[in-house]
């Protein structure tokens, strides 16, 4: 546990020192969402109908953007080699990196989402389901993302390969995340959809660290 906190602490410190890089993800999220009203017209009914999908798809793409350097920086400067020869379990390294990724990429998206719900003129009763949906969904996106990141660590066309692997796996989270908002906008309860998202989170937390640990070991073979 100490090792996990140590790695997270270091990654957060680096993220703070490289604030501009961290803000890029949040900036991408906000700017991309804000482009849609210009692209599809400001018709209130239209934005309201597709707003949840716009925010969720952009959140997915923003998460993908931040996955590129997740392990590649550590591989480049030799930190990963030393971690893999240290007493710290690979599983713990993967958990720590996933949590660091979520704290620096997923959490800012959750914090910004109410502003974007308002900017897309969505009903006020969709703010809470958007926040809860992203709170349950973004850790899963990070978990799945880390599998893609470790699988493609030394791949030649990493920039193309990683999205091809990860994006199909993101689809169920996208569907239920958008569903939470749409259901609440129709004044129905989305509790069951939250349970499904929670189920995805539990499954991903069980399987993804194991898969990523195996992929990480294999990347050095």
């Amino acid at each position, binding site marked *: 546990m*100490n*090792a996990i906190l*140590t*790695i997270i602490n*270091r990654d957060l*410190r*680096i993220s703070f*020192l*490289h604030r501009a890089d961290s803000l890029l993800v949040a900036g991408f999220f906000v700017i991309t969402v804000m482009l849609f009203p210009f692209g599809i017209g400001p018709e209130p009914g239209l934005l309201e109908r597709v707003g949840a999908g716009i925010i969720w798809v952009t959140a997915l793409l923003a998460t993908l953007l931040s996955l590129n350097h997740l392990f590649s920086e550590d591989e*480049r*400067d*030799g*930190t990963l*080699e*030393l*971690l*893999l*020869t*240290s*007493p*710290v379990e690979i599983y713990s390294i993967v958990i720590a990196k996933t949590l660091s990724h979520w704290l620096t990429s997923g959490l800012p998206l959750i914090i910004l989402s109410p502003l974007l719900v308002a900017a897309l003129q969505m009903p006020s009763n969709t703010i809470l389901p958007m926040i809860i949906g992203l709170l349950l969904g973004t850790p899963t996106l990070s978990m799945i993302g880390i599998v893609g990141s470790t699988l493609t660590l030394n791949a030649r066309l990493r920039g193309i390969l990683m999205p091809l692997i990860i994006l199909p796996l993101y689809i169920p989270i996208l569907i239920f995340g958008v569903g939470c908002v749409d259901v609440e906008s129709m004044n129905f309860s989305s509790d069951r959809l939250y349970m499904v998202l929670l189920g995805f989170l539990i499954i991903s937390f069980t399987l993804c660290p194991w898969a990523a640990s195996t992929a990480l070991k294999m990347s*050095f*073979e």
Partner: protein
Amino acid sequence: MSKEFTSESHLKAYNLSGSRSGQIVFSNISFTIREGQCLKIIGPNGSGKSTLLSILAGLIKPHSGNISRSPIETNSIRYSGHKSGLKDALTIKENINFWRKIYGCNSDSVEEVTTNLSLQNVLNTYTGLLSAGVKKRASLAIVTIGHAPIWILDEPYASLDKENIKLLDGLINIHLNKGGIVAFSSHQESQLPITTSIDMHQYTV
């Protein structure tokens, strides 16, 4: 000097072969080094020196053959590769502190760890601003954290000037005198007491 490490420390390899990107680069390497002994690996570029050291450090599995080491705890090995293991965005002190916590070593302070490699004046400097030689010394300081008995060093003299090479040799000699084990690769002549030397040229496939 009193022995710090167990008298049963050893690093053994039997019929070891190693591969890189699916290609076997060397085969049939066997050796035994015990406490206080030093293994030097020499050979041309691409002969598998780094691959052999990575296998000894436990970073990768051998293609075939066996390795045995004692003590068997994962905290008994320190590895220094071609890359520094340091984050450019952090200061030397922050980097060393990180590795102290990772290795679970709270007894040695950052100052104690870095004094041996003359890093006192750069502790609060961002690593990215330092020269290759200073970074190399900092990455070697990581090896000394926690007094692990087995040191695996890949080209430890790279980027070091004569004065710092002497400094490093002094540290390694102290480590050997305490009963530690060192396995390293280098193109340079060494003043260290080499117990076993492996010329990769003889084992390259």
